[in-house]
């Protein structure tokens, strides 16, 4: 099971500002290992962010998002105490969901 994400969500004015760091190799499929064999592609394909049941961001990723991906975005409609839930699925079907409580501004 993949390692947990680090999510920071706080209020900036009337918006929720989210910074998330995900633990993922994001292998491009072009790297060769020690024995010269190609390491198969292994990367997050879909990311979904919800808050109080509403999708506030969704993304499709390719192999050129950096290893241990980072995202920073802002949305309206959340307040301190609400939860921001972030889920990802990768090309091998592995998934991970983590959440964070929105801190006050």
């Amino acid at each position: 099971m993949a390692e947990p994400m680090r999510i920071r969500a706080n209020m900036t004015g009337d918006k929720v500002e989210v910074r998330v760091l995900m633990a993922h190799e994001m292998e491009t499929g072009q790297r060769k290992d020690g024995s010269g064999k190609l390491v198969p592609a292994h990367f997050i394909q879909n990311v979904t962010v919800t808050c109080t049941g509403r999708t506030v961001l969704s993304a499709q990723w390719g192999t050129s998002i950096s290893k241990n991906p980072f995202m920073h975005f802002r949305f309206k409609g959340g307040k301190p105490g609400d939860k921001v839930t972030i889920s990802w699925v990768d090309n091998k079907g592995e998934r991970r969901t983590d959440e964070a409580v929105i801190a006050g501004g």
Partner: protein
Amino acid sequence: MPSPRLAALLIAAALPCAGLAQQDTQKEVERYRQLLAEGNPADLFEAKGEELWKARRGPKNASLEQCDLGLGAGVVKGAFAHLPRYFADTDRVQDMESRIVTCMVTLQGFTPEQAMKNPFSAPGRPSDMEALASYVAGESKGMKLDTPLAHPKEVEAFRVGEQLFYRRAGPHDFACVSCHGDNGKRIRLQDLPKLTDPNDAQKIFTTWPAYRVSQGSVRTMQHRLYDCYWQMRHPQLDYASEASIALEVFMAKYANGGEIRAPGLKR
């Protein structure tokens, strides 16, 4: 005398900035580093390290929570700021990583070989030590480095480290001082701190361990030294060896007073 090609590289790097172009490049590289600063992947390692610190592991099924990192058993906060230092129970000077190894052996029952089996991660093969080091170092973030140099063995380690720092060897006739002995040197875009100048040392030494984007992992001071030795084509520097710790004691003396900003973020 370093090989002619290397000497030329170093000399060229030491010449004062030739024109605006060089300064612009430097500014842009600074900007690159600044933009990277938010969301340091080292956070992931710190979190993992804390988890490992508190997990019951090894033949003794114990956690590392009673580890004495120099401030007493169970005290992690601030301990990194005073390492390396002499420890009475092992009767030697130890740095953070060797002390974590000691605790893994005495508290958790691992053999030294098991504890030091995988100090440096590779893709798909994470290293517990990198996570543990990130956690322990992070618990001293914001504090000033303050390593002791009083016990006879600490002083001896300093002198050994000093010898190693200046002693040229290997096929390139290099020593640490070859790259780190002057202000304003750089290799391509990488600035080289003068490690015996507190101005440089205080700012740079305290950013280790750090997430290195080129390595895709947190790297520790032990790795930095191991890598330098490899680059100098010196014999392999053994993990957590007396020589490596002696070099850390030497460097720490000039870095004392610097603010600990580990785990840092580097190229």
